């Protein structure tokens, strides 16, 4: 199955290309282009790699190399929602371990896994620059900070409903 960006995202890609010096713009747009593709289907499949390579005149090996370097490019499908618990020391000092354990118990999965209904992928993240509002979790593109366990429940309830 081939991949193509939606017309709206394709327009955005054209805008992105104009931000960089002309002779370097296709290479420079590689990471932003992969973000656009991942926004569309949730992960960077081989079809996405092929599309980006051909759209930007880059070797597919280069694009794949970029995908495998950066931890936010998913190399396999993920749940409808992604939830990251920050695990690093400043959050850990303020109870990130309890937050993660609570999420694992509620969702019945371990960090790195996706719920059976495909709704939520639970992940852990390295420091998300939210140390003074710890513990925190990131849900898709939104930060939730200064969390108590009941607040974590509220977030999980909302995600499980829709």
């Amino acid at each position, binding site marked *: 199955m081939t991949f193509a960006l939606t017309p709206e995202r394709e327009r955005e890609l054209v805008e992105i290309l104009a*931000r*960089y*010096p002309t002779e*370097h713009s*296709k*290479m*420079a*747009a*590689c*990471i*932003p282009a*992969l*973000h656009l593709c991942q926004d569309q289907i949730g992960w960077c499949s081989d079809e996405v790699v092929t599309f980006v390579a051909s759209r930007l005149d*880059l070797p597919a090996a*280069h694009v794949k*190399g*970029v995908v495998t*370097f*950066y*931890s*936010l*490019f998913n190399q396999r499908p993920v749940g409808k929602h992604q939830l990251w*618990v920050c*695990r*690093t*020391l*400043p959050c*850990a*000092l*303020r*109870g*990130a*371990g*309890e937050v*993660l354990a609570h999420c694992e118990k509620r969702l019945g999965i371990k*960090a*790195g896994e996706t719920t059976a209904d495909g709704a939520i992928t639970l*992940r*852990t*993240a*390295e*420091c*998300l*620059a*939210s*140390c*003074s*509002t*710890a513990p925190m979790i*990131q849900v898709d*593109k*939104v*930060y939730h900070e200064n969390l108590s366990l009941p607040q974590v429940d509220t977030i999980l309830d909302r995600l499980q409903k829709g």
Partner: protein
Amino acid sequence: MLKQTNYLTKVYGLPDGWTLPVYERESHGYEAARRALTTMSPADVVTEAKKANLRGRGGAGFPMGVKWSFMKPHAKKPAYLVINADEGEPGTHKDRTLMERNPHAVVEGCIIGCYAIGAHVAYIYVRDELHLSKERLWQAIREAKEKGFLGQTPFGKDYAVDVFVHTGAGAYICGEETSMLNSLEGRRGEPRLKPPFPAQSGAFGCPTTVNNLETIAAVPTAFLLGCEDFSKLSAIHTLNDGGVRLFGVNGHVNKPGVYECAVGLTLRELIYDLGGGITGGKALFAVIPGGSSTPVLRAEETVNAPDEKSPAHPWHGKSVLDVPLGVDTFRSLGTMLGTCCATVMAEGTDPVAAFHNLMQFYRHESCGQCTPCREGSGWLSRIADKLLAGTCSMQELDSLYDIASNIMGNTICAFGEGTAMPALGFLKKFRGEFEAYVRGERSGRDARLNIGSAV
């Protein structure tokens, strides 16, 4: 001393504080850039900037004005300004507040910076996770453009300036400047050998200045006040460490947060006055002064600086908590100021578990390009695993020194030092606790810090 200021943070928390009208009303928004572009030559701007004694806020503490002066016009190549907003050093949470709450200071700083170094384009490299930061920066750029502060003729001056936001995709190493440049160019974020330094060959092979986000956001304030007066706000401006900066405090304190103060604040003031003291009324155990790569200090440590030439000499024999937080003062203590965001640990915190948590971070984030770092960070992390599991021998504990020492100086970038220094710091300061684990006298005492590595 404790001189709280609000040059950068005045708009924090105000309704629509991140928008242009509020920035103009509250912070004399864009007056500094207007003055610089319409009344000064680029060379004048650099000369003035040097007087600010503004030490880079990203961790290395290099003087901003001096860095700008390295930029020489190239006959054929354009110049670039790249702003490092890949904030990801564990314990560091200051740049995000600026992007979310005062993005116009960043954009205005970029205009002055571009003009000073001969660039017409600035890229702000923001880590991908900071979606709100990116949104606010883009909005600020749009607003500035509509007002004619950006674009072909900012403030009517025939000197085009454009600012773009570029995002990474999750890699701590991209906070290293050459790795960031590779990532900006669309490559894997692996650091480059220096030389050539970015000022000779940076973004797209062109002369480039890389400034930390807080550094560039402080530029309008420095120019508004006059750079010399800005410098003198600092209690240690005679140590060429001038101005005001953001101080972060996190971990076991009652009021974790980001506070703006004159440079020269002490750790004691940061922890007890601004941070509201230790949670639960406990005693302070240890503090990591400025991000996880800066070696840890024990609460009871005193300054050992008998040499009169040492910047820390005036505090010789006193508590390390009473030394002004400065680039050179903290280097003299055998640690670093880093990003000036302190991670506080109360009594009862297990330093071996804290070490284990951080070693997992470094193993996960090593880019893998250099063998000593790739293998060394994994090895450190595996021995930390064994320590917590109670299966580490004394010989293996000693090997931590060898492994860490063999990373230092043997890698392309400073990530190697950033891994080895905190490892050696924990070992040196908490040898007794580490040995207790080996002898089986302690085990997994603070398992709450053991969360597994990122997945």
